[in-house]
């Protein structure tokens, strides 16, 4: 799988799920498209509008991105902003599961938030573990995604994966 896109934002360490989508909105709205207009509102009010102008936005972040609540609305609004993948130093674990479950690729790459800049064009070779920065012709390596998670992505998320397999097998 190859993902091409442009960095929309470089978020700091410990960006949390309340910042991604505030609790005050999430209970009222089951329509994710509408909810997406409030993505990152408290820390970055222009995010949604900018996401509509970029072709395939990529989010880059420092460590522990997505910490906090289990709300799946967090990855769902990011996906609804057309974000093609998130590359971070590390992710909080509930958020990590949630993203693969909905078919949104996450890449863990050391120190990435200090190596790239907003606006850079990237090309991510998911299977090989390589990120190419088209803007400055640099390359960064990452540990490829575990096989089970790749299977989830290839299926389009957990539900299509389970549909294809008819449930969980004994060991993944």
């Amino acid at each position: 799988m190859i993902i091409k896109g442009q960095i929309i934002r470089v978020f700091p360490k410990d960006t949390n799920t309340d910042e991604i989508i505030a609790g005050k909105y999430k209970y009222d709205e089951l329509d994710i498209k509408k909810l997406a207009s409030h993505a990152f509102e408290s820390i970055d009010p222009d995010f949604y509008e900018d996401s509509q102008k970029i072709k395939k936005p990529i989010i880059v972040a420092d460590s522990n991105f997505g910490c906090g609540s289990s709300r799946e609305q967090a990855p769902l609004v990011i996906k609804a902003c057309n974000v093609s993948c998130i590359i971070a130093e590390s992710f909080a674990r509930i958020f990590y599961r949630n993203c693969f479950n909905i078919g949104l690729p996450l890449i863990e790459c050391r120190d990435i938030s200090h190596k790239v800049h907003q606006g850079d064009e990237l090309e991510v070779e998911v299977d090989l573990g390589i990120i190419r920065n088209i803007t400055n012709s640099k390359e960064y390596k990452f540990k490829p995604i575990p096989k089970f998670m790749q299977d989830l992505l290839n299926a389009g998320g957990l539900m299509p994966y389970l549909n294809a397999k008819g449930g969980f097998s004994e060991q993944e």
Partner: protein
Amino acid sequence: MAEKILSAKTNIEVTAGDMIVTPVDLVFAHDGTMPLAIQQMDFLGKREVFDPKKVIGICDHASPSPSERISNVHNFMREFARENKMPFFENGDGICHQIVVEKFAAPWMTIIGGDSHTCTHGALGAFSTGMGSTDIGAIMAYGRTWLKIPESFKFKVTGELKKWVYSKDVILHIIGEIGADGATYMSMEFLGDTIDRMSIESRLTMCNMAIEAGGKTGLCIADEKAKIFLESQGRGNEYKSLSPDKDATYKEELAIEASDLEPMISCPHRVDKVASVAEVGEVELDQVCIGSCTNGRMEDLRIAAEMLKGKKVAKDTRLVIYPASRSILIQAVQEGLIETFLRSGASIGSPGCGFCIGRTVALGDGEVALSTQNRNFRGRMGNDNSEIYLCSPATAAASAITGKITDPRGV
């Protein structure tokens, strides 16, 4: 201990890092996460849960419903629960975690909840963790989930806590020490004589906040205290002891001397921005909140009532108290605690998540709150332009009386 529980559950000798598929003994979700889980089940073409005795729904987050939209979301859940003949807990029954503690959780169970604070139930020796709605939907349909066996992080807490210093101060101290990602994907195991002496309620407070350091779960041993607690809930037969093996290995260890600890505070807008009350100084408060799945139990309310008895809440400060469940509210009424609170000037909310997520008593612009809850992210209490400090019930009650952050030992 996490490895022991999951090995027993899957009948495979598992070790940290293994990917497994495990049966789930209890799955639950609330009004913030269950509607989406039900929608996700549609993708599987399923509307029937795997076992109606093992799936529960709770209205606790936007509860009681503040709007017609949310009432319709609640109805969507009610209809699903009725169709499946599964237990459903209404507005006012309490917070999902407290209901699970009182009625369902037991040692050696695997419990998955659609809420990040599901790590709470490790206080009774269960492997318990939070997941998102898609995972919850898959479990509701199949009764199984996939997991990576977490590494373990041992916290050895020894010595006597000082008067007016509690398990909340211990866990805030720990999170301050290791940071918001200090235990990412680890099982945080709380051991040592201080924990052994703690009540189940105090242990629940510790495990509840494991996620604030990135923990997959929090775990305590299941001992005589767990047995007595389960007996008090009429579920003594569900007790089975749990303790770490003598040769258990830990990825990391941290030793804490309890007698060194002071009343602690988490400062805005991060749970790991921890300082002692003395270091934080006399911050003026608009609202003080006592309750939540972290600190809304009898022990917490008794501490607060002891502090507030015969005293008044400061003139320019509001005190709101939300007991964590219906049974706690009933007991608090019977013990006269609610009268003490009302006479002090506090308002009492319907058992549920209430203030913690700003669905009720949301903060105004520029306001400052002190709360016994577990999270103080920007906007958590409904307003991006407000500040939230976290503390124990004793510090909260003392501060409500003075109207500013106050060491409970001085009141």
